[in-house]
């Protein structure tokens, strides 16, 4: 079956629940344009005041890493324990460090 060209595109929706917090992915929806995506997101994802700000991103514009490459992709961070503060030995008695 060929896709109808009048099908509304897919948008991924991110909601900030409170000022000062990050926007978090909540799901997706279809809408003809960005304004409609944001208004639909309000109706779908914030019916109980769950949000303070909404981001809508065309799903086509969202790129992601490949889970099957995860092992090699994240490998460079594997052996660098010295990036964590607990790696270091502090002299006995030193305070506030």
């Amino acid at each position, binding site marked *: 079956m060929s896709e109808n060209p009048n*099908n509304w595109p897919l948008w991924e929706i991110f909601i900030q629940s409170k000022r000062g917090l990050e926007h978090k992915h909540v*799901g997706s929806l279809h809408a003809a344009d960005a304004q409609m995506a944001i208004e639909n997101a309000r*109706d779908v994802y914030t019916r109980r005041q769950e949000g303070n700000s909404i981001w809508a991103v065309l799903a086509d514009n969202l790129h992601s890493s490949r889970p099957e490459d995860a092992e090699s992709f994240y490998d460079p961070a594997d052996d660098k324990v010295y990036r964590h503060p607990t790696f270091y030995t502090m002299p006995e008695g030193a305070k506030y460090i």
Partner: protein
Amino acid sequence: MTEPINLEEGFQAKIDAELKIEPKDWMPDAYRKTLVRQISQHAHSEVVGMLPEGNWITRAPSLRRKAILLAKVQDEAGHGLYLYSAVETLGTSREKTIDDLLSGKAKYSSIFNYPTLTWADIGAIGWLVDGAAIMNQVMLCRTSYGPYARAMVRICKEESFHQRQGYEIMSVLSKGTEEQQAMAQDALDRWWWPSLMMFGPTDANSPHSAQSMKWKIKRQSNDELRQTFIDRTVQQAEVIGLTIPDPELKWNEGTKQYDWGTIDWTEFYDVVAGNGPCNKERSAARNKAHDEGEWVRNAAMAYAAKKAKQKAA
């Protein structure tokens, strides 16, 4: 360096370790297929479920009840959408999912093929139908597919008011006039057995259950969930003075559960096959809404294209 292992074994190992499966992860075709079928059926149920309740919005007995019912039906639309978007993460287009509902290829919960004859039916639906759905949905919050589990968490949060408003309706009616009490009892009589059928066939007759449990799509069997629902609901009926329409219902001190009668499975399979009281009406209503909305969908795209062009100019 780990030995390369068979994809399917690796997949099952993740499930066994309680790791969620995410959209871009490798998964067996049958897992994907089962999820597409189950989640889309679930989504369709939310959407078709708006019809029997929508029937009473204009005739709700007070402004308070009307506002509540509107909010509930609006929630059901939202729940349908959360689930449709979960299906879409499995690589099935929204158009295809909706087309399968419209053509009758896809199923939805048979409970919505029963009519809402009186106001008390709105009470019974909230109390029993949403009550039964919640049992299932609470379990699904821990399902192995990430997007499905996340949709379920959201739905469960919203759903608890649905059951409470229904029980409140029943409670008020059962304290009302003789006529109102009779109306509440009649609704319970008609909705009780179909609500028990919502949990699906018995474990012995549920061929896909074992695989779904192994993949942790399901966490509890149909019969377990059904029994818990009965044990909880009987007490709630007693509190409001209504009688469960099952002469064989009896507390069993040994099992600490209720023993109960037998579901009419002929009726169950008959309604699934399309011969329930409202199957045709529900399908016709969905098709009509879809057809009549087509020009709106097209106009919105034309308007968006025009605005984009103006912006570019």
